[in-house]
């Protein structure tokens, strides 16, 4: 029974049916299932499908946003019940669109998919300066920082941020993305990773987190 409900919950997220996903989440909680299991076996698998379909052009930006809303509404019910450790999940990611750039649709989707995969994500928004990235990385003791840029005139700023991170010897993994970014560019500026889309961004974040652990982080 609960297995079927979990499957229905995944489908509700995929279809972007917010009312249904909230209803199912409540039902599963009433049945005594723990919040973490609902998240891992209902919401997250749904969001994963959404990410893959988006990558493959089966669905487009609006459907992703609608699914994200369904997922968020359910997550809001679970959050008070998740322990701090569970909430933090795989690790903390600071994400933002770099200075001079206001494109945020792709960055928001990446942030959402990371959240859906168990990362704790702090979104600094658009037009983000180096200081703001650095402050947030330190304050949150983040494992990963993600930068997004959609303009060739702003992508260079990623290097500015990376240089500052290196100068201050902050141990954090840097991943970059956005339409004009390439693997070659990412290597050139000294980023730890590049991902072409949100699904790959999650994979990348997971592989990066395999390398850093909190203990190593120095401030």
């Amino acid at each position, binding site marked *: 029974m609960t297995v079927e409900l979990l499957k229905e919950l995944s489908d509700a997220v995929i279809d972007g049916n917010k009312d249904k996903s909230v209803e199912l989440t409540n039902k599963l909680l009433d049945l005594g299932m723990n919040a973490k299991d609902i998240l891992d076996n209902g919401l997250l698998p749904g969001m994963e499908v959404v990410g893959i379909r988006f990558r*493959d*052009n*089966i*669905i*487009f*930006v*609006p*459907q992703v*946003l*609608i699914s994200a809303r369904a997922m968020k509404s359910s997550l809001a019910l679970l959050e008070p019940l998740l322990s701090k450790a569970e909430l933090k999940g795989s690790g903390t990611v600071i994400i933002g669109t770099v*200075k*001079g*750039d*206001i494109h945020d*649709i792709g960055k928001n989707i990446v942030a959402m998919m990371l959240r859906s995969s168990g990362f704790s994500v702090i979104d600094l928004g658009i*037009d983000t300066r180096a200081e703001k990235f650095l402050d947030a990385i330190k304050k949150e003791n983040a494992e990963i920082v993600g930068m997004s840029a959609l*303009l*060739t*005139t*702003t*992508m*260079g*700023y990623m290097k500015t941020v990376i240089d500052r991170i290196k100068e201050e010897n902050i141990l954090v993994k840097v991943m970059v993305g956005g*339409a*004009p970014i*390439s693997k070659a*560019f990412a290597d050139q500026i000294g980023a730890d990773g590049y991902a072409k889309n949100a699904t790959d961004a999650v994979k990348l974040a997971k592989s990066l987190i395999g390398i850093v652990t909190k203990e190593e982080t120095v401030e």
Partner: protein
Amino acid sequence: MNKFLEAVKSGKVLLCDGAMGTELQKRNLPSGACPEEYNISHPEIVRSIHKDYFDAGSDIVETNTFGANRARLKLHGYENRVREFCLAAVSLAKSVCPEGKFVAGSVGPTGDLLEPLGNLPEQEAYDIFAEQIKALEEGGADAVYVETMMAVEEAVIAVKAAKENTSLPVVASMTFELGNAGLRTMWGVDIKTSIEKYSEAGADVIGANCGKGFDEMIAIVKEMRPLTQKPIIAQSNAGIPEWIHGISVYTETPEVMSPKAEEILKSGVNIIGGCCGTGPAHIKRIREILDRLADYHI
């Protein structure tokens, strides 16, 4: 009939201009600065770009007002200067516009998501576009260009705002890219839907701008041409820029572009021009092709 529409329907292909944004960047518009504010603070730069395009052979130039709407200007704290920026923009373009040529008012997306996806109510989007487009008409624009649209709902609102509040002809385009599902906007809108919705809303010219470059633009025009009787506009990017040794380089130079532009012309467009990355040199090339094909009628 309106002079602009008369020219469009004359059977002669009209040449629009190339990019404004990337030309401003070449002239040191700082990254992140508000391009539309340059109409006030750096009028000589904006005017010289228009003049370069007219000199290169453009029949139409677009005003520096792509982001001159309340929603976009708000990011710079200029939300109350929509009319001022638009009036200045039109006047700059007109000051160098030769007799018989045209000035079109550029209207880009709000950058916000409409309800229920986002927080922008439909009525507010309508008011935002109406405010900008009325100012463009007041300034004396000959037409309005609704461009780089990706969400069909927003695109239609912009066209309606133009049609219901001004008597300007409306040129309306969206940005398509080729993916597994064919040519679509980021919002998933295909060419057929775009044509249907724009036609219903009353657009006078329909087409595509921006995108991945001239090759895809050829495919777009070929798909579009059999689907509508309306005049078609195509304004391609000069490819997708690459970052080479710290500078941004668009890959489609005028030379690379030439044969592709010719193919677009032969595929039945009525207005051709360029978008991001194209400059006066591209436009000059297309003018040469047009002159060579002078006998070529659609």
